[in-house]
């Protein structure tokens, strides 16, 4: 089988592939914002008043690894029905969707790595890390964090196309939905 993974095209097409991917991610993020804005506006004040929504800001490695981005990490206590629904709808990621427009985050990519730690087990290379609102590991039956998750994330960073990213976002969203609703 001749180059079944199309690896030979990765380097040559890297720059050209970035633009369509960005457009697809921005368009998909826009759709998600439109869909999730109503539950977010309804749930967020109630959860915050009830003490189930806590936000802390931390620095994370940007995609180019030479700079950092500040992102809010939401701790959502899934103690009540409202919080469980909010977690299932990934409302804790809602604010991050706006970072897709600025290009700081992909809609789906690597799990953001804290700025004070190097990516786990990471090889050198530009394909190894692209922080995302959702991670590729969340779309697969893999551990969602740690070194094993980094393996599947790097696989998809090298092999996914803009269109397959949409499918993987849906899978990640559904996985989180099922995980939270059965938790």
């Amino acid at each position: 089988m001749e180059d079944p993974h199309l690896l030979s095209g990765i380097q040559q097409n890297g720059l050209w592939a970035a633009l369509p991917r960005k457009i697809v991610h921005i368009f998909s993020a826009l759709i998600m914002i439109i869909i999730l804005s109503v539950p977010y506006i309804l749930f967020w004040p109630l959860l915050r008043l009830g003490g189930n929504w806590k936000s802390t800001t931390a620095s994370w490695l940007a995609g180019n690894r030479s700079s950092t981005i500040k992102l809010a990490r939401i701790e959502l206590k899934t103690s009540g029905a409202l919080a469980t629904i909010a977690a299932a709808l990934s409302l804790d990621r809602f604010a991050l969707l706006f970072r897709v427009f600025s290009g700081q985050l992909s809609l789906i990519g690597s799990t953001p790595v804290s700025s004070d730690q190097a990516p786990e087990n990471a090889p050198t290379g530009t394909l190894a890390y692209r922080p995302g609102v959702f991670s590729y590991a969340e779309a697969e039956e893999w551990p969602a964090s740690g070194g094993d998750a980094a393996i599947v994330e790097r696989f998809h960073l090298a092999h996914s196309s803009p269109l397959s990213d949409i499918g993987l976002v849906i899978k990640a969203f559904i996985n989180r939905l099922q995980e939270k609703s059965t938790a």
Partner: protein
Amino acid sequence: MIITETSNGSIAIVALEGTLDALSAPELRNNRMVIDPDKMVVIDLEKVDFIDSSGLGALVGALRQKHHKTCGIILTCMNGHVRKVFEITNAQKLFHIFDDTMAAVEYAANQQGTGK
């Protein structure tokens, strides 16, 4: 995917043929040699022409199940494409990888003998 099982002493040799993807990965994941935590398994990938993230997941998951955390699963005879996937993802660091099945079996037998 075709899975062929043989053994050399107490070491199991599992030869895979075809595509290791989301469809075939469960077959490997449920293989009796692979799921046995005490069994050291040499997996021959010579005839695997494609591996995706699910296939990688099946191999990593199999390794995680083994009592021998570093050499419960040993991989051999990767072709260039499969090796490239392991290099890109850095999964190669998790496994002992040999070019020759008999060398892998010998290594596994030594590791078993020393109890590592």
